[in-house]
């Protein structure tokens, strides 16, 4: 039997001291002969553990006794130790141009669809699994927190309140939402004209909203929109989506070190705004239906939006996350304006269309 001898030049360490010496590995048949100035031994080919190939780092051949030899001669290693072909699989994938391009395209696709469909879907499913009681508790907690930080007691006159509360009750019973869904009046303080739907079914309306949206029918349209948020459990889904996106971003970017974490917040902030726009549209279409059902016109919501927009409201009427209210001051006036202004036009148009 003719045997071919493969020779590999390598650096040898005995594993007991960090002394380095040059050796030559002669691989023939089924045995490996390691020969250097102060070392000489023979081992079976199958007893040598080959480290998986990776980038440009030297290949490590570990011997049963604990010593190891390192070499850059990958070609010779792959021929001599054909039994450990598996050790090059990952490397072949990682250095193959086609595989890299495909992985790149698929990764971008997966991230995009995960953000666009996966996260909202998962948040909806998880929200549906969570008992309503938890949500109600969350509502009381967040109302208390916002009361402490932002809101003041409402200065709205009693007749005005009673009228609004009556219309709200009418909307609520038409919507089929439970009795526990209630309306709260507050002085918005620096938040200004706003209405919030807290998780668990508390709608908070600020006095400033009534000042900006002077027509009572339009205020009721805004309340219908808030009921839409409650019906679709937006606050809860918002919180869930937020934490899911953060977790995913961390899983993907976290790999890169904490510094990349800073960079990761930039895209997540943008995703944030995108999600809330989708929720606004969902709440709008719910409001259109509810308004029609109670003999009102969807146009009222469009008019309310226009009034809020023209009044230069800090952000438009509905921000469904309690945290967002607290953060609002830090955020810009124009952040809301720029990112939602075209959307506001679309929403007004949608209201006009629904009214037809």
């Amino acid at each position, binding site marked *: 039997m003719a045997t071919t001898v493969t020779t590999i030049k390598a*650096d040898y*360490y*005995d*594993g*007991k*001291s*960090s*002394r*380095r010496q040059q050796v030559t590995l002669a691989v023939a048949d089924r045995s490996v002969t390691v020969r250097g100035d102060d070392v000489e031994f023979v081992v079976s080919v199958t007893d040598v553990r080959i480290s998986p190939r*990776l*980038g*440009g*780092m*030297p290949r*490590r051949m570990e011997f049963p006794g*604990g010593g190891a030899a390192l070499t850059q001669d990958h070609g010779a290693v792959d021929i001599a130790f054909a039994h450990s072909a598996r050790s090059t699989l*990952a490397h072949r*994938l*990682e*250095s*193959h141009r086609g*595989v*890299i391009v495909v*992985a*790149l395209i*698929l*990764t971008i696709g*997966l991230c995009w669809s995960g953000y666009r469909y996966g996260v909202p879907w998962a948040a909806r499913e998880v929200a549906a699994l969570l008992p309503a009681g*938890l949500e109600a*508790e969350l509502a009381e907690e967040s109302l*208390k*927190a916002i*009361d*402490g*930080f932002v*809101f*003041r007691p409402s200065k709205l006159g009693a007749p005005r309140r009673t009228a609004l509360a009556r219309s709200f009750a009418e909307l609520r019973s038409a919507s089929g939402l439970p009795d526990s869904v209630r309306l709260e009046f507050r002085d918005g303080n620096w938040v200004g004209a706003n209405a919030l739907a807290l998780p668990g079914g508390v709608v908070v309306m600020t006095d400033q909203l009534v000042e900006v949206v002077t027509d009572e029918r339009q205020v009721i349209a805004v309340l219908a929109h808030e009921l839409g948020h409650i019906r679709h459990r937006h606050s809860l889904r918002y919180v869930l989506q937020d*934490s899911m996106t953060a977790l995913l971003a961390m*899983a*993907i*970017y976290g*790999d*890169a*070190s*904490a*510094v*990349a974490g*800073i*960079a*990761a917040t*930039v*895209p997540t902030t943008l995703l944030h705004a995108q999600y809330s726009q989708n929720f606004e549209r969902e709440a709008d279409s719910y409001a259109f239906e509810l308004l029609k059902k109670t003999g009102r016109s969807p146009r009222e919501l469009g008019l309310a939006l226009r009034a809020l927009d023209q009044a230069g409201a800090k952000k438009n009427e509905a921000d469904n996350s309690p945290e967002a209210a607290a953060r609002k001051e*830090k*955020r*810009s*006036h*124009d*952040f809301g*304006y*720029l990112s939602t202004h075209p959307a506001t036009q679309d929403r007004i148009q949608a209201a006009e269309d629904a009214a037809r």
Partner: protein
Amino acid sequence: MNESKSPMAGGALPEAAQPTHPFRFTGGASEYFGIWIVNLFLSIVTLGIYSPWAKVRKLRYFYGHTWVADSNFEYHGNPVAILKGRVIALLALALYSGASYYSPKTGQGVLIVLAVVAPWLIARSMAFNAFNSSYREIRFHFKARYQEVLGAVWPFIAMAVAFFLLPQFNFEEKRPPTPVEWVVIFLPLLAVALIYPYILGAIKRLQVNHSSYGRAPLSISASIGQFYRLYLIAYAIGLVGILVLILAVMMLVFIPVIGWLAIPFAYLFFGAWYMGYLRSRTTNLTFNSTTLDGRIKFVSNMLPMSLAKIYFVNLVVISFTLGLMIPWAAVRVARYRASVLALAAGSDLDSFVAAIGQQVTATGEEMGEFFDVDLSL
């Protein structure tokens, strides 16, 4: 892509009499990009199950391309051990978030339990990482007892307990908080900021003083006070950053366009400066006061502004490419870190290092037979 030049920044080292052996990083951005994207893709399609393998390949890449005195480092971590550790960490996280969803109090209770086991986990994780690192086939070791780790992290545990016992702030009254209440609200943040330098310094000291390369012990002389000094300066940078950010937000009202550009710019600029200052100073402090076997010293000449510049460019590029340039950024940082690090050996390094023997026994803890926990402290 492998650039084998080793720019010893400045070159003028304090102990110029000693021969130095510069570190160098030979990894390349395009080569690492392929490794990164393929591993990221595999991690995503396997719903994270592949991620420990990805982590091992990443660490092997960065260790393996870091050279000093003509030899490279090696990472030997077993992905299966890391996978087990991640599953357990995930369960703990789920337990914590589930508990805090019910009530913040229960969440804090779970946090206390986690805090109590934390010293053990930290010791475990450090032992795993040390044992799985080698240079010239000689492994590193870390060994510390529970109470020794506790000595470093106890302020954190004490704080967790204190906030658990502290009464919950009551917002029943509908009025803005008084100055005293604001202090109470921000107390936890302030406490964390003040305690963090202690914990970090103590952990660095613990990590170095309880580590060895083979049988050669490592020791560090940096004091916790030195870590405090550097953190206070970093905090000052951070505070200036926050003030500038507030200014930028206020600008939005008057000159929207400039404000819009200023906010992300200020955020990334101060983020990079803060991290650049902190990382470079802690790295220099740690390395420059560390001795191997009482004879070999490390010399780290990281410049805060150079690192901050690298970070800033990295952050901008990563943001604009939605993360695709992460491999390039990581290689840039590794190359800089290596380029300013050197070993200062009194005698011929080769013969000295060769004399350092392997520690014979490795405990199960080191081998990560049970699990490795990835705590990035």
